[in-house]
């Protein structure tokens, strides 16, 4: 029979349950949880914490996603079952109803501003990098906007694919290259090849003769104009010279 104090000492050597530390750190918001989700894009790994969704990526495997997250975001990551309502929220977010919160800590204020502005672009529409730059009050920082979007930690959910090159070309996409960007935009109802055609022809804006308003070609307010009333415009100066004013919804130019 073991002496009592030896047994008590052994009682002190009991180990906490597996995963205890990870769950605890996740609970105080110092580790993120993640789970794979099946989406129209295929399997997307989504990480979240108490602040909101913190990252998403179409990684090849859970291990790849974990490695990328720890290196890129710099926090611990715990595999978890998704909260019951997250799948529905993600579905809604993809449908264009904004329901997700995002954790953008760790990004610079400029990057956060770019991503917040990008979220305002409606599904089925596209905007140039220069538009984002002007809207957030840094009209000259077009390249920096491109970099910020390329480093978007939550691609697709924060729709960086809806931002295209200022000359109308589709441009690159961190979430899987230009082809993926084109596919997502088509799925969202953007007529991508038509937009590229217009861009090649040097057309930037669509004016409507009856309203004397010019819009980005994908703006939902101009979408139902009759073909015979549409004028294609090359730049702001010629639009204004022809008596058009910029749309107040898609804001193709600063409303003077």
């Amino acid at each position, binding site marked *: 029979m073991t*002496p009592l*104090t030896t047994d*008590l000492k052994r009682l*002190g050597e009991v*180990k*906490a*349950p597996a995963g205890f530390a990870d769950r605890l750190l996740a609970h105080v918001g*110092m580790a993120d*949880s993640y789970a794979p989700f099946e989406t129209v894009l295929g399997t997307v790994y989504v990480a979240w914490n108490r602040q909101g969704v913190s990252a998403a990526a179409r990684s090849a495997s859970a291990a790849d996603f974990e490695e990328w997250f720890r290196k890129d975001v710099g926090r611990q990551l715990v595999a978890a079952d998704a909260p019951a309502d997250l799948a529905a929220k993600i579905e809604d977010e993809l449908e264009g109803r904004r329901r997700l919160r995002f954790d953008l800590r760790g990004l610079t204020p400029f990057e956060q501003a770019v991503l917040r502005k990008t979220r305002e672009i409606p599904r089925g529409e596209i905007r140039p990098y220069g538009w984002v730059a002007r809207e957030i009050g840094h009209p000259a920082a077009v390249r920096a906007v491109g970099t910020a979007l390329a480093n978007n930690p939550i691609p697709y959910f924060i729709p960086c694919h809806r931002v295209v090159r200022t000359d109308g070309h589709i441009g690159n996409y961190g979430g899987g290259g230009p082809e993926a960007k084109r596919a997502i935009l088509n799925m969202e109802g953007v007529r991508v090849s038509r937009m590229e055609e217009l861009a090649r022809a040097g057309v930037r804006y669509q004016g409507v003769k009856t309203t004397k308003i010019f819009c980005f070609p994908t703006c939902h307010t101009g979408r139902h104009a009759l073909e015979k009333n549409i004028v294609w415009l090359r730049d702001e100066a010629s639009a204004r010279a022809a008596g058009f004013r910029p749309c107040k919804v898609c804001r193709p130019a600063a409303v003077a």
Partner: protein
Amino acid sequence: MEATERMFERMVHEHQHRVFALGLALTGNRHDAEEVAQDTFLRAYRALVTYPPDRIRELKQKPWLHRIALNVVRNRVRGVRPRLVELNGSEPDHTPGPEAGAMLKAEMDALAVRVAGLPARYRDAVVLRHVQELSYEEAADALGQPVGTVKSNVHRGLKLLRGDNDDPADD
């Protein structure tokens, strides 16, 4: 803030088993032990973020965590029973850990039940001194009692656990 979080993360990894074992000996079952351990660290975290850096540096983590855990257990007895947060619905894993080889898990749990069943003042003293292996001075500090009181409570607690009223020299 960053530094506090790093420090807290290290503290959790360093002390998680100790605090869980403390919870087990004080409550007598693993589910309550996990609640106590979780609540202890949550309270520690909430306190840490309000502490200035030099206070954090000078903090003696081990006695500090023991003090918090003792308070957590006392508050539970008073009826404040924080619910274990089952994060994301995952079940806490209660499979036997590496200690299983040394002593059967069932025996360990039975001993924990006996210890947890002691009157609180003996239980706390025995657990700090013999389960957690604090020195009498550290235990006295964590309990806020004089060393002499702790010694006598440890002694009586061990006697109760042995189930005898004599005075065998085993402490």
